[in-house]
């Protein structure tokens, strides 16, 4: 099993710098989010495919299986994410399939292992990010996420830090954001939990260590249900 990542950002940054990389792995980024009280799905990172079944037996099915490699920032593009995976044996097979796909499409990348998480999909998918922009300084982005984020561009920016009024305006700025309040027959998503994530990123934008070392914290997708939010994927990029 891979060593479970620390949630302490100073330790994560030091580890990445020691390995001369400027991207944190998904398990590292999620450990950080968990430490910030931003919920992530239950899961575990493993080094080898044969360790997968034990993790699945503990988590229950279905699960999602993802490649772990810090150089691999767009995993879906190379088929390195598989879901829903319905059994312990299928999870082991998924790990082997993902390893083969990465070897084919990105032979330059060495896999660190696999992340196995409870499969908790929801629609729509949101994107929430903190960016230390070279010209504007810390900015917060929110909008419709998922894989169409760049095609649809239903996102908006604000200069950080954000006050409550800024957050309210941001959550209403694009047509797609109406999906935060209307759910067509289902219980509406927990809007307050989304607000909490934005507030958290806004607070982080004011911490000296974050300003000094981190270029971006991106949660995509973030899903919101009546039970709260979950960060299904996360990316943390350090200043190079």
């Amino acid at each position: 099993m891979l060593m479970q990542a620390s949630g302490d950002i100073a330790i994560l940054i030091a580890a990445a710098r020691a390995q001369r990389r400027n991207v944190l792995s998904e398990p590292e980024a999620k450990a950080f989010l968990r430490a910030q009280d931003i919920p992530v799905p239950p899961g575990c990172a493993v080094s080898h495919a044969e360790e997968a079944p034990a993790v699945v037996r503990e988590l229950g099915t279905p699960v999602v299986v993802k490649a772990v490699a810090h150089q691999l920032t767009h995993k879906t593009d190379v088929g390195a994410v598989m879901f829903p995976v319905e059994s312990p044996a299928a999870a082991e097979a998924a790990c082997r399939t993902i390893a083969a796909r990465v070897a084919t499409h990105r032979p330059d990348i060495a896999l660190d292992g696999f992340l196995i998480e409870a499969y908790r999909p929801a629609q729509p998918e949101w994107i929430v990010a903190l960016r230390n922009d070279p010209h504007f300084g810390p900015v917060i982005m929110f909008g419709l996420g998922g894989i169409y984020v760049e095609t649809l561009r239903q996102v908006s920016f604000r200069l950080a830090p954000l006050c409550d009024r800024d957050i309210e305006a941001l959550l209403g700025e694009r047509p797609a954001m109406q999906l935060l309040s209307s759910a067509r027959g289902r219980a509406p998503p927990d809007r307050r939990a989304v607000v909490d994530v934005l507030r958290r990123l806004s607070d982080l934008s004011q911490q000296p260590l974050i300003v000094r070392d981190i270029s971006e914290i991106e949660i995509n997708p973030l899903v919101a249900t009546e039970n709260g939010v979950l960060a299904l994927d996360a990316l943390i990029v350090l200043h190079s």
Partner: protein
Amino acid sequence: MRDITPLVAPRSIAVIGASANPTKSGGVLFDNLVKGNFRGPLYPINRTATQIMGKSAYPTLADLPEKVDLVYIVLPQQHVKEAVKQCVAAGARAACIITAGFSEASQKGRGAEERLCEIARASGLLLAGPNTIGMVNAEVGMMGSFVNFPRWESGGVSFFTQTGIFTGAVMLHVMSGASQRLPVGKSIDVGNKVDVDELDFLHFVADDPATKVIGLYIESIRNPRAFFEQAREVRKSKPIVVLKPGRTKDGAKASASHTGSLASDDDILDGALRQYGIARAEDEDDFLNALRALVMLPRPRGRRVGIATTSGALGVIATDLLVESGLELAAFEPATLAAMRGVLPDWLEPANPFDFWIGIDIKGPREAHEVGLTALFADPNVDLVLCTLLAPGNADFPEFGDLVRRLRRTYDKPVALVIYGGEAEQRWTAALEGAGVPIFKTTRAGARALSLMVEATM
């Protein structure tokens, strides 16, 4: 923070490159300064002439009897650097370089421009330009532009622009109008913006009692954090409208993340403008209309609009435009509806938009307009008024101007007027000149002006 008063409101001006030749930029600019009755001493700098347009000429700045506040430089590109050095040596406090052919033209020009900037920065000389149409400050009689304006309507609008000739052409257009001219007290064009920038300007207008409304045409913001902090203070008393082109320009930044590729400077700027309550105009028409509404009208107390129209079609068009811009339709009070019923037939129930064309048939144009518009203005749920009125012969009545003036004065609410018609339209427009009622060419222009007004003030 530095004070740009010597540049924007100088006590004395010299012009290097002044000539008596009215076909040259230096000739037109000097002529404009003379005819504008600049309040202080005006010195033409010319190596050969002894007098230009009745003013004693001097060969160099060093020969002047005083250290001047501002020097206009209207010389061929290759002589500009020497002129800037001359400004520094003579102790001038500011220079405005009209000459083009710098960073906007070529890489070589960019290098030359950087050297100008270094010279100015090292000495503290305030610099506007190069590549500018010039600067106008009507309050001190500084018509420092190489565009010849037929007249200038002075007033509470202050412009800061980062462009070559755009400001001059637009001002010429604005000032040539027979009515509804935008009252512009200051128009400061810094061209390529090598030194004095939008933040300096916001500091200046914050303390300038003559500035009521601010219009910025900018291609970038040099120091966004400081700019927005200052803008937050300034807008409390002086609303700001920004025209910043380049919305569609591909600003993607190379990045491992989606955020990086989405975070173009324009997208971030757009969010920040909303966050800090600065209205963003889409084009020059939008920009000028918003400024006209802001300088002529009182501040809105809310975002609920009452629409009065004598065309059902224009009423629906107005509704679409207003709602799309984030404004709301007012719900009329029972008393308002009762008054409106007075000019409508039994079978027609008044609503918002209030379409009262048929009332003109029943009650005649004067009574229909008077009863209908008064009810609309008086309704406490109406924060802003949009009137789209047709003016063919049977809708015309001589007291139209008096009626609208009275409503504007009595209720002190922001109102945008759109008039469609022939001869009566011109008469109605003329009757409202000086009444503080902006008149727009189209429903779209009027609706956009109201919504930008709300963005800039609320």
